[in-house]
């Protein structure tokens, strides 16, 4: 029976840190998580004594495959000097660290722990692109792999079903990409930090200096339509519809609300938590939404007493451009079938009424899969705590932000709402 959820006691977010996201040939998961932890330490207003950390919950999708090493909870606990405190790894494909966040919240809400470190890490770039795709596809169904469906292929198929049902087109996907790339230059941590226009200008300049034929794109969409500049991956999706391969780590300090003032006078409160499961592509009840996201959203809204209108901005799991359109509908920000129009009208831009993926999203910020859920919540932290600099959401009284994380092809989805009081 469905029941409205609540926490046994309140939980607050009092610190956060993330590594750079990029492809690093000379950094491993220990280095990246250490980088994130050092930043977290400086983010705790009144300081953190690491000896006070009761436990670590760590999200990691498949370093087992990417670097042939598992058991990352214990390994990172050791490298941070947290031994012999307990460390637990969570896995939910690309939603692994949102699950770590939830486990940390539950551990505190139950009264068992007071101070918990949660986060995630992934080290993807040590393998070829084909191998990375193979690793990620471990989260798809065996039927999909056998049918030749790659991860981008599954989302591309979803796009064609969405196009057919709602009359959208590839041009609408381009609007998502252009918007993400507009936010990215404002994020110093983004893996890709150029707006599409800047990228075009750079290519024109290079062609001129090398005496090659100068491209004559008339605008950003013209550039994205050019298959030489933006080659197909899985039609209707091209390279710029897909997130990159990234290495990175992110971590968050959670504490019991009642002791939050030992760490800061300005904590964020965990007010809404939701998680859902979904089916494989062929058995989904509809190809144009994610059942797991809708369930996660319902749980989080019910728990918080908030509605989609109350959420002032959100990070959503844009592993592929079409995904962002589905999520902003599933989360209730826009009606089913209206998401692509909302992006076209600029409603999700940084200066729009509902900014989405102010960080540049997975597309530009980068997507080290096991770290992404935590990194999304860190963007919410930076926005709500007024630390987002030039990409700060231009709204007065910014109070409520949310993050949506998706694993696999929608098998695991979470939605988390944070509030600054």
């Amino acid at each position: 029976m469905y029941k409205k959820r609540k926490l046994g006691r309140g939980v607050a977010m009092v610190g956060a840190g993330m590594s750079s996201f990029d492809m690093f040939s000379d950094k491993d998961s220990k280095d990246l998580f250490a980088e994130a932890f050092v930043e977290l330490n400086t983010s705790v207003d009144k300081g953190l004594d690491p000896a006070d950390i009761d436990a670590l919950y760590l999200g990691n999708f498949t370093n087992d495959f990417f670097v042939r090493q598992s058991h990352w909870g214990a390994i990172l606990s050791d490298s941070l000097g947290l031994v012999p405190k307990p460390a637990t790894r969570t896995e939910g494909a690309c939603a692994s660290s949102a699950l770590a966040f939830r486990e940390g919240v539950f551990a505190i809400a139950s009264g068992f722990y007071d101070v918990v470190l949660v986060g995630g890490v992934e080290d993807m770039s040590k393998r070829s692109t084909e191998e990375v795709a193979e690793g990620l596809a471990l989260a798809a169904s065996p039927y999909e792999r056998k049918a030749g469906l790659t991860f981008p292929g599954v989302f591309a198929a979803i796009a064609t079903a969405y196009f057919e049902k709602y009359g959208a087109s590839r041009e609408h996907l381009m609007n998502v990409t252009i918007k993400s790339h507009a936010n990215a230059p404002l994020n110093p941590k983004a893996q890709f930090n150029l707006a599409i226009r800047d990228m075009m200008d750079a290519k024109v300049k290079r062609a001129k200096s090398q005496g090659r034929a100068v491209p004559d794109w008339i605008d950003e969409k013209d550039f994205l339509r050019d298959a030489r500049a933006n080659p197909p991956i899985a039609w209707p999706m091209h390279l710029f519809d897909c997130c990159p391969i990234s290495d990175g780590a992110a971590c968050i300090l959670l504490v019991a609300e009642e002791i939050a003032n030992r760490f800061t006078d300005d904590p964020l409160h965990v007010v809404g938590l939701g998680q859902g499961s979904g089916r494989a592509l062929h058995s989904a009840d509809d190809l144009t939404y994610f059942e797991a996201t809708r369930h996660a959203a319902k749980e989080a809204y019910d728990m918080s007493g908030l509605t989609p209108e109350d959420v002032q901005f959100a990070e959503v799991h844009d592993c592929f451009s079409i995904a962002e359109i589905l999520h902003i509908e599933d989360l209730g920000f826009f009606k089913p079938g209206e998401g692509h129009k909302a992006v076209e009208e600029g409603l999700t831009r940084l200066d729009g009424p509902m900014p989405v993926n102010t960080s540049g999203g997975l597309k530009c910020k980068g997507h080290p899969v096991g770290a992404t859920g935590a990194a999304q919540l860190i963007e919410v932290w930076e926005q709500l705590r007024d630390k987002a600099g030039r990409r700060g959401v231009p709204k007065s009284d910014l109070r409520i932000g949310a993050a949506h994380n998706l694993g696999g092809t929608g098998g695991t989805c979470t939605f988390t709402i944070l509030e600054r009081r």
Partner: protein
Amino acid sequence: MAEKPINDYGFEQFLNEGKLMGSMCNGCETLYVPPRSLCPGCRHSEMEWTETAGEGRLAAFTSISIGTPAMIKEGYDRNNPYCSGVVELVEGARVVARIEGVDSIHPETVEVGMRLRVKFLNQGTDDDRGTVLAFSPIEE
């Protein structure tokens, strides 16, 4: 016909014989393709093999330029993409499959909703994937 286990192993054995089979739940009469040994709807575990008509319509598809390792090995690449998709069978169940006989270089010519008939790829070869489920357009 020897009894085949009602699961993915049995499904694969039928594909090798050129049959697209599903499991019909004895409890609620829902058809599952591929088969399931437990009905997720009514939790009955008594299932019966049912042969499908092998016809359906295209519900969603893609033309893939950067393929899975097995497809790359078959020679598919950026210059030679292949189509895969979701097919809604006339019985109502949906399956994922390769889509053959369409112009994968010009995927904009492929129409969602088009009628398709099953075909079996690599049947009887020693491909370690076994027989691969595919569909191709029914000429109208």
